[in-house]
């Protein structure tokens, strides 16, 4: 077996570079003659711009240029597009307002771009920006779903009546209504899903360059998907032919979705660079990141579950209002629709489901995909209402899940909300989670905690999600304006080293290691002999980037297809060298052998022959380099069982997560250490959402939680030592059998945490708690419970 092949827990090849500060991030790059761009942002949530006076700024030291929305309007470019088109219930298209890179007449959220100052240094740009006077006439704003849908609410866009972007639905309403008619009991739940600020460790940054000699434009940017950015910038916001536009995303320090999207600043640095004929750079401060990176989640939902007397689920009705912010970000319309409502079946055989989603504009930063993107919202809603149902029916929380699970012999399973799950074994995952968490012995721990004055609770969630996005034909039918396949190019060098060019992008996922392990496995070579190249549209084949836990399931599959082509071509060369029939040649452990003999050629010898074809098969092209595009047949469906235990200080309401067990079915695991790390990170963010994080706007649209002083990121001390396991059933439709692991931690954990908190407080009459379950919320729940 190859020590670096599939299943080996080898250390990440990229870590020595990244951990020693030798990474090369966008902000580390200094271009010759580079100028700095400072973005002037709106302090108002909604206002009319009545005047901009920039004369003083233009005369300030070092200032090269000041550009405003009027300059942009004159150039007739700079509209940031969205990538998905959703249709209303009546078939009409959603309201799709313009999204100018610089506002001309009106600003629509705090942080909206109004003007840019370009200067020789960053400090000069910042100081000059303070001299630009913008006159605003403030307008009434709406910041929340509640405000946006109120009768007579101020409109973010005049063309969006009731602030509605779209009013969409999925599922069979009549069948669902009929199911509710037969119900023994209907359980209801109203809940929000809190708004989150992604906060990647590296703030966004972008450098625009223009070479007047060649006419080439280069954008270096903090992107999860450089080709998508090139497509959107080249074909839509700017209009630069793609063969004259290069997008480079070098080392990127985390994204969690927030770096998928095409942002105004990417357009602005390119625009300024082309106007000025010199490189222009922008890097966000953390404060800017809070008000300009797309936020995540922000739903208000009402759900009803119809049950038979024995606890069988008969039907589910969901009505959700999703906050999209002031503009439509790249993926925004897809998140509360096809990435959310399609998952409302969960792991269960609920036969009838009907979901309505109304999405609204508000005077807030655009909301888009954030680690999990739609699936955490679905999992939270389902796993909460299932717990509520168990309590209201007097059933055991585990038993009600077991009773309604899709059985392992029922796959492929067609849900009533469009998806067909290919594989899973929810009962086994559950049993493994219960055993690993010591579920059966919990009451003893509860009693022991009570002796210490603490309220201890245990919670479970059994979730399923969809990733590996996805079949191009399917997503196209659903409104995607792009295909969603992945590409790979495997270039074998004459001496047997291999460079793999992938259209995915690594910004913390460890692709340089995991993908090298694929090559090690398929070619029988050491991982040290493999280099992974990504992130530069001039080097890599057209690819769709990294998000939605797709890189291994889709990008890895493309790599495997290309590797198999390499092996097949090598076989022809080896057969010729070994003077054997191709049918008699086998490839194993890095060697081509003639079956039943000791005659063999190593992979390296074959590679050298491909480039020095002195003795070579007639008619075969020299060289050993193969490409593949892989368009998946279906989504993949990771699932799992998360168990959380909390202890609550009843006097203060402070909640401590004392243990967390995650058993996830992510399909075939290539590197168990990387998988464990991905789950750890996801759990940190999921626990963060459940207990700590929350972006708060006041009713005037001011962002209250605009820094780390007020926005609580989870820290190591907030988390227990996780217990993480996997239980693999293989994806049936991709060559690796892998499903994806990037988001499972953030999807499964929030409901497990809240279920645990509610379990600790249930005896006081507490039925539900909103996220984040902050100390005051918990204290009030206890306080109100005691009064009741």
């Amino acid at each position, binding site marked *: 077996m190859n020590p670096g092949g599939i299943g080996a827990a080898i250390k990440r090849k990229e870590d020595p570079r990244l951990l020693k500060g030798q990474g090369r991030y966008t902000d580390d790059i200094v271009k010759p003659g580079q100028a700095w761009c400072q973005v002037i942002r709106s302090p108002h949530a909604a206002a009319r711009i009545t005047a901009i006076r920039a004369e003083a700024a233009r005369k300030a030291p070092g200032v090269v240029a000041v550009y405003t929305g009027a300059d942009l309007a004159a150039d007739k470019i700079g509209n940031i597009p969205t990538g998905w088109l959703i249709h209303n219930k009546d078939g009409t298209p959603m309201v799709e307002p313009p999204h100018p890179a610089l506002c001309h007449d009106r600003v629509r959220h705090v942080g909206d771009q109004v003007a840019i100052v370009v200067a020789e240094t960053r*400090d000069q740009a910042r100081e000059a920006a303070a001299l630009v006077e913008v006159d605003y006439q403030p307008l009434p704003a709406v910041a929340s779903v509640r405000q946006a849908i109120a009768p007579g609410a101020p409109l973010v866009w005049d063309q969006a009546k009731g602030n509605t972007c779209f009013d969409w639905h999925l599922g069979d309403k009549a069948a669902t209504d009929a199911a509710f008619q037969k119900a023994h009991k209907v359980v209801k739940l109203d809940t929000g899903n809190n708004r989150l600020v992604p906060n990647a460790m590296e703030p966004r940054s972008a450098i625009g360059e223009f070479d007047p000699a060649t006419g080439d434009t280069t954008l270096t940017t903090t992107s999860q998907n450089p080709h998508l950015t090139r497509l959107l910038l080249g074909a839509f916001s700017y209009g630069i032919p793609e063969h004259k536009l290069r997008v480079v995303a070098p080392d990127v320090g985390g994204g969690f979705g927030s770096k998928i999207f095409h942002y105004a600043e990417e357009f602005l640095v390119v625009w300024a660079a082309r106007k000025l004929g010199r490189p222009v750079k922008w890097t966000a401060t953390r*404060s800017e990141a809070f008000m300009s990176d797309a936020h995540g989640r922000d739903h208000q939902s009402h759900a009803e579950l119809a049950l038979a007397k024995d606890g069988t689920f008969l039907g589910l009705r969901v009505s959700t209002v999703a906050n999209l912010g002031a503009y439509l970000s790249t993926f925004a319309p897809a998140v509360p629709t096809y990435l959310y409502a399609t998952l409302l079946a969960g792991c269960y055989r609920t036969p009838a489901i009907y979901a309505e989603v109304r999405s609204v504009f508000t005077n807030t930063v655009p909301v888009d995909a954030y680690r999990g993107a739609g699936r955490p919202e679905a999992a939270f809603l389902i796993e909460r209402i299932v717990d509520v149902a168990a309590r209201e029916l007097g059933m055991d929380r585990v038993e009600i899940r077991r009773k309604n699970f899709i059985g392992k012999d029922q796959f492929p399973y067609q849900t009533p909300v469009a998806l067909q799950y290919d594989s899973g074994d929810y009962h086994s995952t559950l049993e493994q989670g219960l055993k690993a968490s010591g579920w059966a012995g919990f009451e003893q721990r509860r009693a022991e905690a009570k002796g210490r004055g603490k309220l201890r609770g245990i919670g479970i969630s059994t979730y399923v999600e969809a990733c590996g996005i996805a079949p191009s034909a399917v997503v196209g039918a659903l409104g995607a304006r792009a295909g969603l396949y992945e590409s790979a190019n495997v270039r074998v060098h004459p001496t047997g080293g291999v460079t793999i060019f992938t259209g995915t992008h690594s910004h913390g996922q460890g692709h340089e290691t995991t993908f090298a392990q694929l090559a090690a496995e398929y070619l029988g070579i050491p991982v040290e002999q493999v280099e992974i190249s990504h992130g530069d549209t001039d080097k890599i084949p057209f690819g769709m980037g990294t998000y939605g836990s797709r890189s291994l399931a889709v990008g890895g599959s493309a790599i495997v297809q290309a590797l198999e082509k390499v092996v097949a071509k090598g076989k022809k060369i080896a057969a010729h060298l070994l003077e054997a029939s191709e049918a008699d040649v086998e490839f194993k452990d890095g060697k081509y052998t003639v079956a039943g003999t000791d005659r063999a050629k190593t992979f390296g010898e074959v590679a050298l022959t491909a480039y020095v074809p002195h003795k070579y098969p007639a008619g075969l092209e020299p060289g050993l380099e193969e490409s593949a595009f892989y368009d998946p047949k279906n989504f993949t469906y990771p699932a799992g069982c998360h168990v959380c235990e909390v202890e609550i200080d009843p006097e203060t309401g402070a909640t401590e997560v004392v243990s967390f067990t995650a058993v996830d079915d992510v399909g075939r695991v290539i590197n168990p250490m990387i998988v464990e790390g991905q789950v750890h990170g996801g759990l940190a963010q999921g626990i963060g959402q459940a207990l700590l994080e929350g972006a*708060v706007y006041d009713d005037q649209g001011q962002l*209250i939680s605009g820094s*780390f*002083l*007020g926005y609580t990121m989870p820290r190591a001390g907030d988390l227990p030592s996780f217990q993480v396991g996997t239980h693999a059933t293989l994806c049936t439709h991709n060559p690796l059998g892998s499903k994806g692991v990037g988001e499972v931690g953030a999807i499964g954990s929030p409901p497990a945490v809240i279920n645990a908190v509610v379990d600790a407080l249930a005896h006081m009459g507490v039925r539900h708690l909103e996220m984040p379950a*902050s*100390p*005051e919320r918990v204290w009030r729940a206890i306080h109100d419970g005691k009064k009741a």
Partner: protein
Amino acid sequence: MNDFNFHKPQDVAAAVATLKKHADGKYLGGGQSLLPVMKLGLAAPSDLVSVGGLGALKGIRVEGKALVIGAATTHAEVAASAEVKKAIPGLAELAAHIGDPQVRNRGTLGGSLAHDDPSADYPAAVLALQATIQTDRRAIGADDFFKGMYTTALQPDELITAVRFPIPEKAAYAKFPHPASRFALVGVMVAKGAGGVRVAVTGAGPGVYRVPELEKALGAKFHADALAAAKVPATGLNADGFASAEYRAHLVAVMARRAVAACG
């Protein structure tokens, strides 16, 4: 951050003389309060006079019935000091939980007091222990020093040199940190000393303050049970997106009980 001139004087007299010359200047201790404010553009001093390295402002010693701590002593030094642990263990404990390790290794006692953040920990100790603030020109009693949010009795060029803490019979600090900033959402220092029982609260209000109701109850009986039914008024307390005034008031009573319990 805006440009500024940096001065590193050799002694206290030179430091004071330097700042006298620069009306828009500021003393810089460990920089853990002032620099973040400057980075956010909320302060833009023309000159920074660095005093964190002045030997005369360093050191921890017991003088008679008082513990004297130099103004430039870092939180980490106070937390680790054998003298502090012996004389006023609650003060060492307080210092050990200020901010994070970076803050504790750079931040200083004098800097924290001069800044007077309404959520800082040290003001509660200074007020509860009835400490005296020694400056380059006078001694200021704790009761006269704090003047509300970010405001003290210090003259613009006045430099804190040391703080004299009378050694109490018992004292302890209990804090409920804001989960994001780790500043005190509510911090309560309880001290029983020559002047009776004093209870000082930080974080909850616009500045550090004493709670006469709790002091009276503890004066009668210095035991957590004495506060079992204690209610603290919410009037005038801070309220924000994270915690209401009512919740803060509730926490004052809880933290006071815990501080008393920690006194042993």
